[in-house]
């Protein structure tokens, strides 16, 4: 239980740190990294919940949720990066 709490708690701290960084920093790249850290924090919490003790098969459901979540995060990040790059291109031209 302690290991589980420490691991999941670390995820919550990551979530809050990411939120802080997202709100405070203006550049797109930092905001995106912040969002990914927040997402990573939530995935941490889910992975911690899956843990059921040493030598016991973990709960597969949160693991699958995290995999799905990662793909979603990658997709959103990629789109945001291209939108940002597009803005930068225009700035350079104009």
């Amino acid at each position, binding site marked *: 239980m302690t290991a589980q709490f420490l691991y999941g708690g670390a995820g919550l701290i990551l979530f809050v740190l990411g939120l802080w960084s997202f709100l405070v920093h203006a550049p797109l790249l930092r905001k995106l990294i912040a969002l990914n850290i927040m997402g990573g924090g*939530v995935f941490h919490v889910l992975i911690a*919940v899956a843990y059921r003790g040493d030598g016991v098969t973990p709960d597969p459901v949160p693991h699958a949720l995290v995999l799905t979540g990662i793909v979603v995060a990658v997709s959103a990040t990629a*789109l945001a990066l291209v939108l940002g790059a597009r803005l930068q291109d225009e700035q350079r031209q104009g």
Partner: protein
Amino acid sequence: MYSNLLTDPLVLCITLPLLGAALTTALPRHAVPLGILAALATCSAAVTLGVDVWQHGALRLVLGGWEPELAIGLRADGLAVALALMANLVALGISVYASGYFRDPERMRAFWPLWLLLWAALNGLFLAGDLFNLYVMLELLGITAAALGALTGSREAVSANLRYLLVGLLGSISYLLGVALLYTAHGTLDLGLVARAIAANDRLFAVDAAALVLMVSGLALKAALFPLHFWLPPAHANAPAPVSAALSALVVKASVYLIIRLWLDLFAPITGLAAAMFLALLGAAAVVWGSWRALRAERLKLLAAYSTVAQIGYLFLFLPLLAVTPPGPPRDNLLAALVLMALTHGFAKSGFFLAAGLVQTNAGHDRIDDLGGTAQRLPATTFAIALAGSALIGLPPSGSFIGKWLLMQGAIESGQWWWVIVVTTGSLLASAYVFRVLSRAFGLEPTPLKFVTDARAEVPALLLSLVAVALLGLASGPLWTLLALRAGGGA
């Protein structure tokens, strides 16, 4: 076998637009006919679903044949079906309009698959019965909405929609943390089962309350509830017209629907009057502020976008009234009024945006001060704006007239008279901004010869506005019956 056939439309509402998106991606040369075909098929699936629910009551389907807690459930009760029907009819109108809107073939090819994916996400959200599935749907909706909004490629559109994408991501991550907490506490993701667990286990009140705050604030961000509305006006005003219509009428509405769903179903045992009052205060601020900014807006589409902020606000005024009204006919009236206002706004705002888009392409701009003579050039479109405007104000016989009437009645009956002031102020401001547009549009020029100039673009706007004013106002009775069809418990 019989029950299978009954629940098939549930699945089709989501898979048909997905298939349409795949085919329009793979065969871009045939994007328009394939897209229209997918739109028609999806819409008929939704109507069939509506008929099924009307005849047989709320439907529920557990996918994969597993235990409900293990698998993902879909469900269609009265509330879900009412909103899904509205969304699908509006989406069909937008599809017809869009088929002639894009001049650049590259842009048209990009539009169709993204639009069908957005449609799938909308239907998926309305019909979902699983907390994590809702998260994936929310992300699909957010990504497609931002991509579509940035389609014009103009600097303003891209930066506004990039901000919209980031804000949406923040909202969904917050929602997801709420889901993770609920899974930790209750060990399942099925909406009905989690609702039952929350009701049964009050030792975990703190966990449920934290999850409620995380989920609702994430969704409020996506629903642009004041003061989290800052991203909406630029994103909606700079998108291509059919996309603006979808964003304002449907996408925002989906997040509001989810808040209402969570508030009334999932977290019903722990949502108190104080929390409801807080959200309603934000809603009241949205009504006044959004209407005021709409009045001050210089561009037609920006006016429509700010009006969305206000119209979303009204929906939150219902929460404290629902909190103090015990089950019975008065509460049914309030719920029906809430849904009626959401539906009316969906039809009216989509009609308004489609018409505004036509004004913009016709005149080359959408500055309200220079709209003189629009009534002569585009009589049908001006008429659509007038109709949609009267629904936004809440003039009889529109659906929102009944909605606002019941809202004020409920407010007085439950002793919360102050909401009446908010509703009146909002309606007065709305009349001011609508008549400001109309007074410009109707110049002193001679009456036109031809009512409709471009049927494919004008008829959808006109029909959608007409539904908002006439159909929802004069024939809203069935809504009460439909909303009475609620899912019987969890599994």
